[in-house]
């Protein structure tokens, strides 16, 4: 385990300490204890810059489950480092911001910071793992922590709804991604991303290649809120604002983008990859920015804006893949789209992060985020206003902010699509620059709405819950830092071009023996891009000014077709369907369930025995039956049969105990002391348990005795028959050598134990034991819940 692994795991370790610290130091805001970690990690990752800026990478590995090819391999390269810096950097700022945002007396800070740290660790794991299974595990953990954070104010119904929605959609995609990972494993025989990339040429024509591509894309699209899966992101805004700034704009939603960038070297040569990513991306870009304009909640505007910006980065990655088909990768003519994707990813994190924090400040200081109630806050919050101007202008793509540079580059990438003549791009490709331009106009409009509807116009104090004033300085530090980055990157883009952007690009499009060199310039001359930007600004201002006149457009869209309605009715339909189906066979009678289970058991096993012709009886290798064994067998038989006829429960229990103890005696005779011991104790305890249970039941009366039922008799005899047949066959068919010889030889050698049974339990098959005790624990929780909580109202535990 290396320091790099420790860095990934450290948030989890701190998460364990948070509740303790919270209990011990109630007076100090828990956030102060959390804050040092992301700062420390950030500086630690900075130290890797010197390695990755030479477009090299570092790999550290340690075995986790080597027999399945699952090793915790941490790999840090340009792309991974860029994300790691975003996660820890924005993470530190968000933690700082949250200290002022969340009240230490009213909020459950222990929960909040545990979830946040869980997320931080999981996200670092996603971007720094080279093993796909490890990546997947962390990936699901980010969905899970996002669920917890969205539902942080779980007493609100909307929070719970949003949390559930995000969970269902992202986990659905995650599972499909797992399918894709397994398909990749079937093709390549490895889970390691670098090894899969090395084999990418060989698997290109494999029949599973396209299914794997589609599965992986589905995972990425759901996570990164691409149309039509974007519907979870606006509902995720129920989370506290620091969370929205962190997870739902700067980091987690970019996991999908990360995955696509990471898997690009494997899939990018396929035309589907280009068309699907670019197509979905550009649709999302357009739809997100179009929908953002009609929102009235500040955070909802930002949410749709995030959706649209994610679509923009996505489409750039898709278009960038086309560069692989031209021999001139090196001159950067077609790779500019990928450069723009990476560049905009950084820029988006800075300006959107600061805008979310601004929205949080407005909400915190006025009590509302509704732009219909807000207005004229400029005089009360001059600093916040300035920050909002910087953020929104960067988002709208205005100079001199960083958003302008990446937007220009985005236009460049889209315009160059017109010159590509592959995969039918020469026929439909013109749609890309057109849609990009239209979407940018809407982006401009909603950016202006955010800043001008909130900070200028008529001040309406009667609509606000609190008297507005400037936020405390602690809350302003984080957005100020982000806004300064917006300006610094805007003026000096080249400080990140060869330290962050080129190394990331080298990971997305590895070119043998070629070192990427990115240079971002402010002024390109009078290019089509410049005129596109000018057009955006002119039309944007015009449309923003006449917004009330054309807003009716949004009413034209039929409400019935809205994706959210589809989601809601689908969800309730599935629930009702499942409920109805379950009602049909789960009627509450345990007897019926036993009938199902045993009938299934008999049918499956008997037919297998019959079809495989597996029944065999071989008495050649058995020892003689002793008299004592016959006696014991008779005792068991007699006791079992008597149970059927006795009238008192107590007698049944005792007889059942007699059967159990006799079985224990069998174990003694067959020299299995461990089994005998366990069987004896189990028998004793279950008799006591039965006594307790039966204490609650009424006496059996004669007329209540169950009459003889033919089906039950057939089933019970059938079960006995099947077990006997299988026992004979298992003994007689020796298909492979028994494993016992291995244990006999190795128990003392490898585990230094002499009791083979116990060594198998705790060492050789320790994993089984671990899961078994987990199952036991779950069973105990289940029983506890069933009896203590009594869901289902007046029905007392009649089915036990």
């Amino acid at each position, binding site marked *: *385990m290396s320091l790099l692994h420790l860095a990934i795991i450290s948030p989890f370790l701190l998460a364990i300490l948070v509740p303790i610290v919270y209990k011990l130091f109630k007076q100090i805001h828990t956030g102060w204890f959390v804050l040092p970690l992301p700062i420390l990690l950030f500086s630690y990752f900075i130290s890797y810059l010197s390695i990755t800026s030479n477009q090299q990478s570092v790999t550290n590995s*340690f*075995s*986790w*489950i*080597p027999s399945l090819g699952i090793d*915790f391999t941490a790999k840090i390269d340009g792309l991974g480092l860029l994300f790691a810096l975003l996660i820890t950097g924005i993470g530190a700022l968000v933690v700082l911001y949250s200290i002022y945002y969340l009240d230490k007396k009213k909020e459950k800070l222990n929960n909040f910071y545990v979830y946040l740290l869980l997320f931080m660790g999981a996200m670092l794991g996603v971007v720094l793992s080279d093993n796909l299974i490890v990546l997947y595990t962390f990936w699901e953990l980010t969905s899970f922590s996002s669920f917890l954070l969205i539902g942080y104010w779980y007493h609100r119904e909307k929070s719970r709804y949003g949390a559930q929605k995000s969970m269902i959609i992202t986990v659905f995609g995650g599972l499909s991604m797992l399918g894709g990972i397994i398909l990749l494993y079937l093709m390549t025989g490895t889970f390691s991303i670098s090894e899969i990339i090395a084999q990418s040429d060989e698997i290109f024509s494999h029949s599973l290649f396209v299914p794997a591509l589609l599965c992986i894309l589905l995972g990425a699209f759901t996570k990164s809120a691409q149309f039509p899966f974007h519907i979870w992101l606006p509902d995720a805004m129920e989370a506290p604002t620091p969370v929205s700034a962190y997870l739902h704009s700067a980091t987690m939603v970019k996991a999908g983008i990360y995955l696509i960038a990471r898997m690009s070297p494997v899939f990018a040569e396929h035309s589907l990859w280009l068309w699907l990513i670019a197509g979905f991306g550009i649709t999302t870009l357009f739809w997100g920015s179009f929908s953002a304009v009609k929102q009235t909640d500040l955070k909802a505007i930002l949410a749709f804006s995030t959706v649209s910006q994610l679509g923009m980065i996505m489409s750039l990655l898709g278009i960038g893949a086309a560069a692989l088909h031209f021999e001139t990768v090196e001159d950067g003519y077609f790779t500019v789209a990928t450069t723009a994707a990476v560049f905009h990813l950084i820029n988006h994190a800075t300006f959107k992060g600061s805008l979310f924090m601004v929205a949080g400040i407005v909400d915190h200081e006025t009590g509302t985020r509704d732009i219909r109630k807000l207005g004229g806050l400029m005089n009360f919050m001059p600093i916040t206003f300035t920050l909002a101007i910087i953020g929104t202008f960067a988002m709208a793509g205005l100079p001199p902010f960083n958003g302008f540079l990446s937007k220009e580059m985005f236009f460049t990438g889209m315009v160059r699509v017109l010159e590509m003549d592959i995969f039918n791009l020469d026929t439909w490709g013109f749609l890309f620059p057109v849609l990009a331009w239209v979407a940018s106009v809407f982006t401009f409009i909603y950016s202006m709405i955010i800043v001008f509807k909130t900070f200028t116009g008529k001040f309406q104090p009667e609509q606000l819950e609190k008297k507005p004033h400037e936020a405390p300085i602690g809350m302003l530090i984080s957005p100020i830092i982000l806004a300064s980055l917006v300006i610094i990157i805007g003026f000096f883009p080249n400080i990140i071009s060869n330290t962050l952007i080129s190394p990331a690009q080298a990971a997305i499009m590895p070119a043998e023996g070629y070192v990427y060199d990115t240079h971002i310039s402010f002024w390109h001359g009078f290019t089509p891009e410049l005129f596109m930007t000018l057009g955006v600004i002119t039309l944007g201002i015009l449309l923003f000014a006449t917004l009330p006149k054309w807003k009716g457009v949004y009413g034209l869209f039929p409400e019935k077709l809205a994706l959210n309605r589809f989601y809601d009715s689908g969800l309730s339909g599935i629930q009702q369907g499942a409920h109805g189906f379950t009602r049909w066979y789960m009627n509450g009678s345990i007897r019926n369930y036993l009938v199902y289970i045993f009938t299934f058991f008999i049918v499956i096993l008997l037919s297998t025995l019959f079809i495989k012709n597996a029944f065999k009886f071989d008495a050649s290798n058995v020892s003689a039956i002793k008299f004592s064994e016959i006696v014991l067998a008779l005792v068991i038989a007699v006791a079992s049969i008597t149970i059927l006829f006795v009238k008192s429960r107590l007698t049944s229990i005792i007889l059942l105990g007699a059967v159990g103890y006799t079985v224990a005696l069998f174990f003694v005779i067959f020299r299995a*002391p*461990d089994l005998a*011991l*366990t069987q004896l*104790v*189990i028998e*004793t*305890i279950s008799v*006591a*348990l039965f006594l*307790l*249970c039966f*204490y*609650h039941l009424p006496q059996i009366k004669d007329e209540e005795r169950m009459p003889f039922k033919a089906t039950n008799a057939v089933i019970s005899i059938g079960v006995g028959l099947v077990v006997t047949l299988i026992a004979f066959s298992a003994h007689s068919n020796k298909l492979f050598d028994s494993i016992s010889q291995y244990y006999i030889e190795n128990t003392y050698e490898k*585990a*230094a*134990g*002499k*009791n083979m*049974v*116990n*060594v198998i*339990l*705790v*060492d050789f098959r*320790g*994993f089984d*034991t*671990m899961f078994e*005790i*987990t199952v*036991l*624990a779950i*069973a*105990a*929780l289940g*029983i*506890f819940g069933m*009896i*203590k909580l009594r869901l289902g109202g007046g029905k007392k*535990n009649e089915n036990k």
Partner: protein
Amino acid sequence: MKTNDIILQTATKVVLFIIVLFSVYIFFAGHYTPGGGFVGGLLTSGAIILLLLAFDMKTVDKILPVNFMYMIATGLLFAIGTGAGGLLFNVPFLTHAFTDVDLPILGHLSLHTAALFDLGVFLVVVGVTMIIIKTIGEDD
């Protein structure tokens, strides 16, 4: 379940400790002779159940003010923690280690991480049995 059986109660007071001691012995002996965490845990819960039958739930709660839910959680943490501990030494999950030491009074000892894992099993088994029996017993 109210009982007032003086013979059972007196016997329990003596037998209880013997059973518990035996269960501890069985737990530790498990690596070399029959026994182990599972049986040990069952024996201990057997002892507690005896106490429960001889006296009543209140007495048991008074003598053993333990939250068995926590006991289950602790047990699981022991098992998983032992497994995860191996990762710190760059070996796969659930790799056990052992060593032999000679101590002044106790003499020759063989220490195993497997024993920690088994302790987890022990705790979970006691916790689960007691939770089941207590919930059903307390129910009315």
